[in-house]
């Protein structure tokens, strides 16, 4: 339990830290992806004339929103966690503590902030008349928890490796950008040429926007097989990430 208490402390500190010194405080959490949504929405709807394929397809903006928020939580969580060990070197070098807590807190605070944003945008879109299925929101949130486990696994791995190889942190944004465009966030699987569509099955993130859209927008089908696979993959990533972290953990202080 002390580790959990410590994690809570760091999560609180991290969330407070984000908005410390900014005028609008916690509003930024919602504002940042909202601005992103507005920009992407404008570019894709008005410039590229993007449409979600299919007959009674949903509007592009709610389609994009359900993919964008999970991605922001996911990518931001990993990015923040990657340097968290390095950034807290003064603490780690002087105080005995379970270092996993730092990684956990970094990812958890991202998911908390953007999870709230995800709920808020869903409710807002519903209020504007988008036919979102609010009853499915709790199920979508469990999906977000599952995504959190996947992010946590990758974050453990990245945070541990970053201590040894400092090239990871600067390379990560580029890799994540590539990953973002390789995921069905801005486009639907059906928009891809047929022969490339199944490639998305190798992308562990692809499952999440598709599932959220199936649940909340009834766009596409909720696949139980995909759900089981994704859960398995998230658990595997977490186990692997933790193993790497545990193995490297005793040697952090020698390389910080």
């Amino acid at each position, binding site marked *: 339990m*002390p580790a959990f*208490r*410590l994690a809570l*402390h760091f999560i609180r*500190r991290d969330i407070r830290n984000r908005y410390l010194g900014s005028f609008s405080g916690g509003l930024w959490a919602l504002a940042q992806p909202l601005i992103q949504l507005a920009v992407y929405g404008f570019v894709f709807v008005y410039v590229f004339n993007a449409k979600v394929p299919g007959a009674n397809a949903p509007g592009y903006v709610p389609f994009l929103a359900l993919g964008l928020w999970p991605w922001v939580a996911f990518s931001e969580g990993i990015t923040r966690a990657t340097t968290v060990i390095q950034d807290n070197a*003064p*603490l*780690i*070098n*002087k*105080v*005995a*503590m379970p270092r996993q807590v730092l990684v956990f807190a970094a990812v958890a605070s991202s998911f908390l902030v953007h999870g709230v944003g995800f709920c808020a945008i869903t409710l807002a879109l519903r209020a504007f008349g988008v036919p979102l299925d609010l009853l499915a929101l709790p199920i979508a949130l469990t999906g977000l928890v599952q995504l959190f486990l996947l992010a946590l696994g990758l974050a453990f791995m990245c945070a541990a*490796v970053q201590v*040894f*190889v*400092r090239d990871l942190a600067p390379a990560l944004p580029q890799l994540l950008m590539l990953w973002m465009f390789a995921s069905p966030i801005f486009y639907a699987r059906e928009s891809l040429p047929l022969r490339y569509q199944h490639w998305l099955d190798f992308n562990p993130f692809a499952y999440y926007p598709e599932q959220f859209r199936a649940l909340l927008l009834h766009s596409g089908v909720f696949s139980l097989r995909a759900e089981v696979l994704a859960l398995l993959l998230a658990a595997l990533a977490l186990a692997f990430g933790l193993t*790497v972290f545990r*193995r*490297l953990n*005793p*040697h952090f*202080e*020698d*390389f910080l």
Partner: protein
Amino acid sequence: MSATAVLAETRGLGKSYPLVFRSRDRLRALWHLLAGRGHADSVAVLKDVNICVRRGESLGLIGENGAGKSTLLKLLTGVLTPSSGSVTVNARVGALLELGAGFHPEYSGRDNIALAAALYGLDATEARAKLPEIIEFADIGRYIDEPVKHYSSGMVVRLGFAIVAALKPDLLITDEVLAVGDEAFQKKCVRWIEDYLEAGGTLILVSHSMYHVQKLCRQACWIKHGEIAASGDVYSVTQAYQAYQESKSAAAAPDRRELLAQNPEFHLLDFSLNESGAAPLVLAQGATLRARARVQSRDGRVPVVVFGIVRADGTPVYGVSSEMDGVQPQRESGDVYVAEIVFPEVALLPGAYVVKAHPLDPEAIRLFDTLERALTVSGQSREFGLVRLRHEWAAAELPAQKLAVS
């Protein structure tokens, strides 16, 4: 828990650091560690250290810079992982390792107190309950709400010590931090540690101040080049350490060949304390000290000989010349003269000293040569200063039964 429960123990403890120079080494190290092998190249800083601290004990760790004392403390607190051997700690540890250890410079003192409490395992309610006590002990006024980066080093130590004091750990581990605060705060800390020890607390202290070690600790452990050189009673260990320090500075003394090549009017042939030759002398407190110097006179004139005693840090204690006392060195043979002085029941307090001998010309004006010998006075006196002055108390004696207890 029984009174003699072991709170901290190390067995065959060793720590080595990897040798990392280039980025490529880091990558290689990562690969080695992931594969479950050890480091390819490493340098050992601590070897086969066995210590055992029981409840209520107080252990002082002494040694030169870089001997591995701080590494040992970090291993004990769990900040570092041992490369070999094991560390067992069965206590809630309060550690005060380095200046500002564990503080985040951007956060206020209050926030850092909360963090320290969380790291120690307190929940928010317990932490809030401790807050007034910590703020009062630290006594840094409005700075408690300022970021720690604006603190002076003294304030950082005050806050750090106040937190540890409020947590009342089973085992207090502290590094050379007392040296930073001002005198009033140092006294407050020493008094707090004394009260803590009296109440059954356990202490592991690293200090370069033999005074603090002797005042606060009953056991001591001397770490030399990563290994335990001596351990046991605080007085015998600190005295052995001081004697070692002395012999090291004696070895670093300037070469005499240069002086002798100039063929001075007078020079020392040898100088010994209690017939111990050039070796450092360990003398029990209150024993008799005999210093003997042989002087070669170039022109056959009778020299004046000065003997002086200084403390290891250079503070003069006493000096006297043959001319002052109206005596002359005795002629041994030819142009060799011998001066010998006896200090019966020498009044020096335990500690490290240097005895010096100088030949002067017969007019006692020019000084020609210097030889030094290390002297360690051993004993368990807790008096302060350099020498025991004759004194009497105009006070009542302690009651008889209380004397029997102590």
